[in-house]
Structures are given as C-alpha cells and as structure tokens.
C-alpha cells in the first residue's frame, strides 16, 4: 500500500522528464478546458449581468433554474450531448463525437451555470448608487454595463476560476464524449481513470498530482493578475 509514496515520486518524474504521453494529456486537458472556459465566459458574463442587473418577470424562477443547474452531473451532460452529436443524432453530420471541440462543447454546458450564477450574484451585490452615479455622469447603456462588470471584476474572476476548476477536474464528459483516445482526446482525468482500470494506482495518483500542479499554476497566474490591478 505504498501507492501514495511511489505515486508522488512518479509524479515528479513525469513532470520533469517530459514524458510524451503525460505531456499530450496535459495539453489536451488545457486545450479542452480553455476552449470551454472561453465559450462559457463569452456567454455567461453577459447572461449573468442581465440576470443580476435587470428586474423582469420570472427572474426569480430563472435564477432558481440556473442555481439548480449548478448540480448538473457530468455523466448526464455527457449522455445528453452524446444523443445530439452521435452520427445518428440531429447534429451527427458535424462529426463532433470523440473530438476535442465535442468535449469542449459539453463542458461549456456544464460550467455555464457557474459563470452565470456567480456573475449575477456579483452584479447584484454592487452598491446600488453606482448605477445612479453612472447615469448622472452621462454614461450610455454600454458604458454602464462595462463599468458595472469592471466594478465586479474580482467576483467575475472568481467565477472564471471556479468554472475552470470544474472543467479541468471532470471525468464523465471527457470519457463519454472524448472516448479517452490516446494522443487525441486523453485528458489527465481520463488517464487517471484508465490507470485505475489497469490497477496502476501509483500512476493514477501521479497523474492526479500533475493535475493539481496545473491547477496551482493557473491560480498563481490569476493571483498575480489581481495584484497588478
């Protein structure tokens, strides 16, 4: 039962020897999660702003739906997207199954509620006088929106980090939509699942440590960004 010790040692070896299989899984993980985060931020920040800023009928219900979707299980998203992008599904012609964009698409659906919900909360939490001040200063609608989001930027950044953490660590979607194909769609998490399936527990733990190191780096970059502001 020395999985932990040998796993840790092996993680160091994998990280510093430039093992091509590990490197491929790392780049695939980064590619997939970056794509899905970009897409979910592009859709989620405006969505969250609208949900948090404006008053409209049914807002409370919509908010409840978004918050419920925070609990979306990854395999359910995987199944749902599979049904649409399988060759026999309505979008089968696009040949997205077992590809990186396919996984990114499904992960976007998974993390979008996180971005929307946290952005909405951030915008709601701002001082109400900000809006009035902006209006008296003669800001137009676009300027108001930008300024409001700028005020809430740290909270929006937190939303992005949380979403990134969810995307980088999920395994259900990557396995079902990506198929864990070596050199192509094998991410770190599906590689961990494979090594566990092979009974190579130490290797699984090593890859887990590699993933955590990656998450640490992403967070370190964000912390530096925050300091600079």
């Amino acid at each position, binding site marked *: 039962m020395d999985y932990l010790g040998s796993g840790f040692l092996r993680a160091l070896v994998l990280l510093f020897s430039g093992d091509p299989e590990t490197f491929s899984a790392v780049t695939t993980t980064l590619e997939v999660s970056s794509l899905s985060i*970009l897409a979910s931020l592009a859709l989620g920040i405006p969505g969250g702003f609208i949900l948090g800023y404006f008053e409209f009928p049914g807002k409370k219900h919509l908010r409840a739906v978004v918050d419920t979707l925070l609990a979306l299980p990854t395999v359910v998203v995987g199944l749902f997207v599979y049904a649409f992008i399988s060759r026999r599904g309505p979008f089968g012609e696009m040949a997205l199954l077992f590809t990186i964009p396919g996984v990114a698409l499904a992960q976007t659906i998974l993390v979008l509620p996180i971005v929307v919900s946290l952005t909405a909360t951030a915008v709601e939490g701002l001082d109400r006088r900000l809006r009035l001040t902006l209006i008296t200063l003669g800001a137009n609608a676009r300027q108001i929106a930008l*300024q409001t989001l700028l005020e809430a930027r740290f909270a929006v950044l937190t939303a992005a980090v949380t979403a990134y953490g969810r995307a980088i660590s999920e395994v259900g979607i990557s396995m079902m939509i990506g198929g864990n194909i070596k050199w192509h769609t094998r991410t770190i998490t599906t590689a961990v699942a494979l090594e566990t399936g092979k009974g190579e527990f130490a290797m699984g733990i090593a890859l887990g440590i590699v993933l955590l190191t990656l998450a640490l780096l992403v967070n370190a970059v964000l912390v530096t960004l925050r300091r600079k502001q």
Partner: protein
Amino acid sequence: MEGIVKKITLFLIALSLFLFTGLLAGGAGAADQVLMMATTTSTDNTGLLNDLGPMFKADTGVELKWVAVGTGNALELGKNCDVDVLLVHAPATELKYVADGYGVDRREIMFNDFIFVGPKGDPAGVRGKSVKEALKTFAARKIPFASRGDNSGTHKMELQLWKAAGLPVPDKETWYIQTGQGMINTINIAAERDAYTLTDRGTFIKYEANWKGEPPLAIIVEGDAALKNQYSVIAVNPARCNKAKYDLATKFSEWMASAKIQKAIADFKLMGKQLFFPNAKK
C-alpha cells in the same frame, strides 16, 4: 478602464483563434485515414492495442483510434454509427447483432479463456471443480461472488454460465456483489470482500503483475470447455451507416488475420505469459 477591457477582449480573441487554428491543423491532415474502433477493456488494459496500433499505422498508413468500453457499450456505439469497426468478445450477442443488420463480416481473430478466481485459501472448497459445481456451491452456501454487472462480454458470459448450471441469476442475493465496473476494479473488489469472481485470463495476469507475484486471489476453476473467450472483429454495416469506413475496416480485419499479426498476438506476453491465442481462419 475601458482600455483594459479592450486589451483583455483582444487577448481572448487571439487566444481563441490560436486554439482553433491548432485544432484545424491537427484535424485536417489525418481526417480521411483514421479508423475508429470500439473495443473492450481487456484488449486495452492489457496493453495489446498499444502494441498493435503503431504496427497497423506502419503497415497500412491508417491511424487506429479506439475507445475501450464494455462489449455492450461497444456494440451500441456501432449501432449508432459512431465507430467503423468493433473488436469484441460475446459470440452469441455478436451473431444476433450481425443477423439484425448492424454489423457485417464477423471474423474470429483470437481467444483466451475465462477463469474463476477467489481467495487463496478457497473457503468454498471448489478448487479444480467444474463450473457447474462451483456455481452450485456459491449459491447453496451463499459464498460472496463479485459480478461485473455492466453488460460487458465477461458479464454476458457469467449470465450464460448461471443459465447453463440451471440456476437463476442471483440478482438480489446479499452475497452477489454487482460492481458495475471494469475487470480490474471488480477483481480488486473481490479481493477486498474475500469473494470469487469470473475474469478473462489476460486481465488476471495483468492483475498478478501489479501485485508482483503476491496477489491475494488465486485461480480456482479453469480449463472447462464452457470458459473459452472468443474475440472477433466486426465491421459496422456500411448500408446502415453511410459514413462508416468499410474499406478501412476490411483492411483492419484482414490485417488482424494475417500470418504476421497472428504471430504478433501470440508473441504478446505479460510476465512471460501468453495472453491471447490467435485462431483466425485462413
């Protein structure tokens, strides 16, 4: 302040362009010479495909991509036209699959055998007995038994063995542990619970290798004629799935049956033990 927003937006646009061009460059060149296969965990977990994949590429220029799932799931992927070829092991189900028009050109490639493994001390006292006797003992004495329970080839074989022994599948019995997981995980669960389980020999050799010769489980029942485990290649029916690469699937099937690859399969060893026995007909 708006300057910062513009800079961030520009950076994000540049990053997305970079990522997408990377994807296109990666995907375009290889697009037509890729064969997509669905196979079972046993061929992947033992490392056989890691050897055969690069050989196929070297011999034919075609890249073999595979997803390793249970046989039930693999057949379903073929039914949905998501793969071009299958390498599976559940002969009765396969024949029905071909008869139903989902697959064509089923070709037997190799076999290994199933074995019953259990605690070294053999608490049920079935070592060396027949499959029928062993199963009857498990049921009568409520001996813990771990089942894959996942519609895989191994699971289908186990269900068939209960039927052949004239026993109902002990679905709701407390001693019958349905794991719903892959083979090695199920063996691990059996080891933790002092249970018996049915496994393909290849995966068990891999399991023994992980324990460096000191595994808590041992082979209890083997050699029964009912325990043969036949692997076959099936092409996805191009008449149903117009995108299926039937020509490449045929190439793969013929390549697997060729003398060279049949020998490579026989030479594939783990811990000095042969895992698969080639038996393709000429």
